[in-house]
């Protein structure tokens, strides 16, 4: 059965000042799939996210998104002016109505239920990331878009955040488009990786991408080794749109390979 494509970017180009920010980029996010964008700084990851969100128009190529789907967006930064008084509860219902019980439950999912009445200006970096994720999750989106969800979060917290995203996907079957720098953690929790450096260097299942020569050149052999120790099955080759169950992240995992039922 062919899975529904939520986002479909073909030959996407964005040119700014004569420079290609995005160069003939093909990215697809299916329903129920976690797609991760990795790449060096200035590779155009955030721009690609903005295209998927409909905030940026392509200069070339085509962009298609299933009409009428509900979007949940967790931006990398929210530059909230300190003069705007805002409680976590109010922030959670910024773009949608929700009952107190629903807000509480969403905050519970990210393990910060005690922050409901706190001012958002008093949150630490890690708490803010969790609250931002809870807000996007509360929307029960069809497509969750998260840009660097683990900035200012320690490794344990990062693993937890990717687990929350995986749980939401499992519970609602939403598609996820994610930008991440945490190569070692995120790879275990993703179905499809696009390695971006203006153009798509390589794409596919994390295990395959980590063996790609261009990926190794961009991130160094160390990154590839880190990835190789993560659970993946060797008895399958993966088509670019091959579906693989998202794994659980185990930091410090050694070379025992987990074989997931397919």
């Amino acid at each position, binding site marked *: 059965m062919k899975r529904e494509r939520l986002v479909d970017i073909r030959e996407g180009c964005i040119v700014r000042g004569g420079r290609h920010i995005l160069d003939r980029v093909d990215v697809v996010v299916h329903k129920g799939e976690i797609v991760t964008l990795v790449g060096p700084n200035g590779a155009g990851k955030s721009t690609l996210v903005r295209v998927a*969100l409909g905030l940026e128009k392509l200069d070339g190529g085509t962009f298609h998104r299933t009409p009428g789907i509900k979007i949940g967006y967790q*931006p990398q930064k929210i530059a*909230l*002016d300190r*003069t705007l008084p805002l409680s976590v509860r109010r922030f959670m219902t910024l*773009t949608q109505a929700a009952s107190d019980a629903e807000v509480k439950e969403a905050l519970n999912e990210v393990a910060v239920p005690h922050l409901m009445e706190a001012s958002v200006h008093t949150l630490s970096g890690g708490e803010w990331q969790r609250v931002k994720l809870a807000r996007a999750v509360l929307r029960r989106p069809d497509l969750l878009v998260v840009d660097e969800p683990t900035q200012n979060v320690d490794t344990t917290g990062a693993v937890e955040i990717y687990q929350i995203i995986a749980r939401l996907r499992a519970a609602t079957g939403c598609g996820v488009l994610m930008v991440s720098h945490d190569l070692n953690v995120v790879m275990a929790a993703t179905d499809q990786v696009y390695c971006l450096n203006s153009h798509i260097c390589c794409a596919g299942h994390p295990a395959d991408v980590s063996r790609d020569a261009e990926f190794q050149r961009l991130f160094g052999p160390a990154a590839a080794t880190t990835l190789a120790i993560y659970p993946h099955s060797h008895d399958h080759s993966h088509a670019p749109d091959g579906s693989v169950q998202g794994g659980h992240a185990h930091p410090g995992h050694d070379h025992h390979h987990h074989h997931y039922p397919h």
Partner: protein
Amino acid sequence: METLLDSFAARALLAGLGVALVTGPLGCFVVWRRMAYFGDTLSHAGLLGVALGLALGVDPAVGIIATGLVIALLLIALQHQRRLPADTLLGILSHSALALGLIAVSFMEQVRFDLMGYLFGDILAVANDDLLWIAGACLAVLPTLAFIWRRLIALTVDQDVALAEGAGHISVRIAFMVLMALTVAVAMKIVGILLVTALLIIPAAAARRFATSPEGMAAGAALIGMAAVAGGIAASFAWDTPSGPSVVTAAALLFALSLAAGGALRRA
């Protein structure tokens, strides 16, 4: 004589309270969105609007609103090109409009033109049709602001999130700009072109200390603005000081008080 005094004092107070009711909530957005300079630009363009209104033989308020709308739409259009930052664009718009306004005014020697009244406002000279303008502005601005409130807050917290999640639209921003133009046009009557922005930002800044929600801050700003108007008019009567600057000075005093009270609250 006493009834005359009563009636123009009452008119001044009514006009000032009406304006403060609108500038309070709107001023909060000016503070949150860091648009103080936008308020200045609108009011500087107001002089050009007055001159155009007089030249075309329509009410100056119509001219002010019209130029304000043009400035607001120009700014939105210009922001879409990203070569120049917003404050540079505003500086260009603001000062070109002011310069054009001063040139236009210089052609109006034959018209009786109270430049000082427009620059500094003359709340004690508020006439009945001014009151009608202000009442009309309140009736137009407050319900519209209430209608777009949630979306405007979402856009203010994070424009990308609001747009991506379908909770905001460019039309909301345009509506806000139109409300600003209307508000500045009527506020000029009270405090004059040079001091309009004060009525937008000082009450809002004073209310910040006590507010825990955007709505609370908007209500607080309206109340503080109204108190400043009442205090300023009273002072103007008592000591024969110019009315517009007196209102602004009263607002500044209330802001200073809010700092002290906020500090005391924090220690408590």
